[in-house]
């Protein structure tokens, strides 16, 4: 309970501090600026080289341009009060509102290759990423941006692995499909002050998976910051608290208590991760990241027995991945690269080449904005 109070108090204070610089609400969300900055105002309209049209009396005013006195007031047209020099006033038609500039769709990816970033999907944006690799792994990740402050996703991951014994000769196998749900909450980069990194608090948890008579689950709590170092380079640094549970002989009449990672001490749950991305060409990015993934060993717990045996039943393995992302179209990216599932072994024979395709859609986002 004490841990809980401390953590929640810290979360409350942290959120309040982060939000201290928030502007007061009251305005409609502005469309993306010309530079693609989601916080930016509308892009300036095209300017005539001959200067603004002064307008003629009796003609409707141009959008965003003041109307001339004496113009008739049309039904449904807003009016404005003009005070004359002699103190009298006159009602004139207000200029019709300027047409909205087209929305600029700007996308920042919620993942490098395997690790989360400190960036969130824009509100209403749909994201789908599908991947295969030479190790037989297949994964899919589908997300939606929520209100520019959060995102929700459901995915299948091929990062969780299993083995029967602790032998170094045995190669861990992919445990898939492993279905997880995720929710991330955060603050966009440069939102609070200039130079502020994008920060997200993420939570990912799996549904229970039963395989070979054992039930397993994983969960991960992450806090990650992402910062641009110039327009084409960005780094990502974060920490994660992992947890997992393994219950062997789950179908037995008296199944044993689950073995958990958190039962082995907090230090074994805590891990640091990070990533790097650079854009040497307008449509191409180089990506590198270091992540962690749980590995279940079914025979390890029963071999030693007790807490010492449990220590080997669930382990976190470091993964290194590097690759290239290429923008095929505004809605489609392809990525390819190399992933080393366990860099602790320094065995490149286990390395996998992967290919993945990512689709993003602003259709829902645009539809919501139109409906509003």
């Amino acid at each position, binding site marked *: *309970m*004490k*841990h*809980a109070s401390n*953590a*929640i108090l810290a*979360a*409350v204070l942290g*959120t*309040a501090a982060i*939000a*201290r610089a*928030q502007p*007061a*609400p*009251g*305005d*409609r*969300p502005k469309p993306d600026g010309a530079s693609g900055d989601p916080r930016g105002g509308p892009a300036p309209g095209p300017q005539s080289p001959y200067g603004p049209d002064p307008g003629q009396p009796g003609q409707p005013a141009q959008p965003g341009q003041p109307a001339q006195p004496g113009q008739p007031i049309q039904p*449904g*047209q*807003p*009016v404005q*009060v003009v*005070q004359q020099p002699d*103190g*009298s*006033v006159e*009602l004139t038609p207000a200029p019709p509102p300027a047409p909205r500039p087209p929305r600029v769709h700007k996308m920042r990816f919620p993942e490098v290759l395997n690790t989360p970033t400190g960036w969130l999907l824009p*509100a*209403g944006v749909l994201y789908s990423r599908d991947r295969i690799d030479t190790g037989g792994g297949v994964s899919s990740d589908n997300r939606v941006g*929520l*209100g*520019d*402050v*959060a995102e*929700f996703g459901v995915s299948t991951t091929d990062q969780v692995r299993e083995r029967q014994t602790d032998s170094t000769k045995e190669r861990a196998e992919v445990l898939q499909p492993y279905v997880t*749900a*995720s*929710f991330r*909450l955060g603050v966009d980069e440069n939102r609070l002050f200039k130079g502020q990194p994008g920060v997200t*608090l993420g*939570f990912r*948890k799996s*549904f*229970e998976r039963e395989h070979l008579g054992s039930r397993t*689950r994983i*969960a*991960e709590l992450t806090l990650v910051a992402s910062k641009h170092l110039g327009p084409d380079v960005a780094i990502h640094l974060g920490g994660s*608290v*992992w*947890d*997992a*549970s393994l219950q062997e002989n789950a179908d037995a009449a008296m199944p044993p208590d689950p073995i*958990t990672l*958190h039962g082995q001490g907090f230090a074994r*749950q805590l891990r640091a991760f990070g990533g790097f991305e650079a854009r040497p060409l307008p449509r191409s990015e180089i990506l590198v990241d270091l992540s962690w993934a749980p590995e279940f060993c079914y025979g390890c717990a029963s071999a030693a027995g007790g807490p010492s045996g449990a220590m080997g039943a669930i382990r976190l393995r470091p993964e290194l991945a590097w690759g290239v992302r290429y923008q095929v179209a505004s809605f489609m990216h392809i990525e390819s690269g190399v992933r080393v599932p366990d860099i602790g072994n320094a065995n490149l024979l286990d390395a996998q080449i992967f290919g993945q395709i990512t689709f993003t859609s602003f259709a829902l986002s645009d539809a*919501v904005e139109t*409906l*509003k």
Partner: protein
Amino acid sequence: MQRALVGSVAPVLASIIAATLGSTIAPRAAAADDAVAPSGASSGSAGSSGGSSGADRGRSDPAPLDDVAGAVPRTPDTSIGRMFRGPFRSARLFAMPTTDVIGAYILTVSGEGSLLQKPGVLTSAGVLAIGFGDIAQLEYRHTEAIGITGLDAPVPAVGVQLKLPIPEYPNIPAFGVAFRLGVPRGELLEGKNVDETVTDLYLVGRLQLSVAPWLTLHGGTRISFAKAAPADPNLIAQRTLLLPTAGYEVAMNAWATIVGEIALAPQFEWMPAIQARPTIGRGLLGRLGMKWRILPSIALEGSIGYQVDDAVSPEGVEAIVSSWDIRLGAAVFVPWGALACRAVGVFCNERAGARR
């Protein structure tokens, strides 16, 4: 002198005429402004920014309480689109009631589910509320309690929520009362059925400081009457609990807020092998998430939930796999009064929605 007087008064009169003319011939513009006024999902902000409601109400002409400026217009010629542009207010954070009510002639249906709390099962909770007179609402809902099986499972309840009709001013808290009459929920434990009932009285307050209009603080106390009734009447356990609850809202933009909530909840405990009868204690529940007004009449909610269940496992926050979950929900607001007015001409009020 007379010319100067005319010169100073004329602009004011002209402004009034212009405002009247503008609101008459250009209602869509006014409506659009109203739709934004309640500050999205922020109920707290809604209460203050949505209308300066209380303060203005206290100073304005005598009128029915539901005739506040910014209410959904109830006239036969109001379009459906205009009706669903609101404004609408939420009367809760996630589980905690706030000092606001949803408003007169409004109905809201909301629900949420936990994807992962119980493996393979989608637990859910819902609220059906209908507003009366802008100071009260009736509701059927699921309230928070931790059952004997260790889940933060909803307990059904019917309730009424009241907003104390006192003028609102900046830096002065607003207050509300909510009563939820529990309906028994049955849980099966080792072949034995236990009916759990929780009846609650909430006393809640809301504070919005003028120096930080983007932040709304909520706090209160939940007085909970909890009862666990196994089949054997000799084993019935009941207890009255005083449970503090608190929360906050941070407006991130016009349509989205970050919401945090922490509360103690009744916790039923019974292990028949070692306990003669059920016991009732306290459990800690925490939520951190967001509300997003995807449309003025539809709000999406998502949160990370934390539950400490000492009865089932003595683990703390580090037990992520068993103590944390993801919850998703949505709320839909229905302006039934305006719809009825348009359809059959009842519940109409020309003054509702008028701008002052």
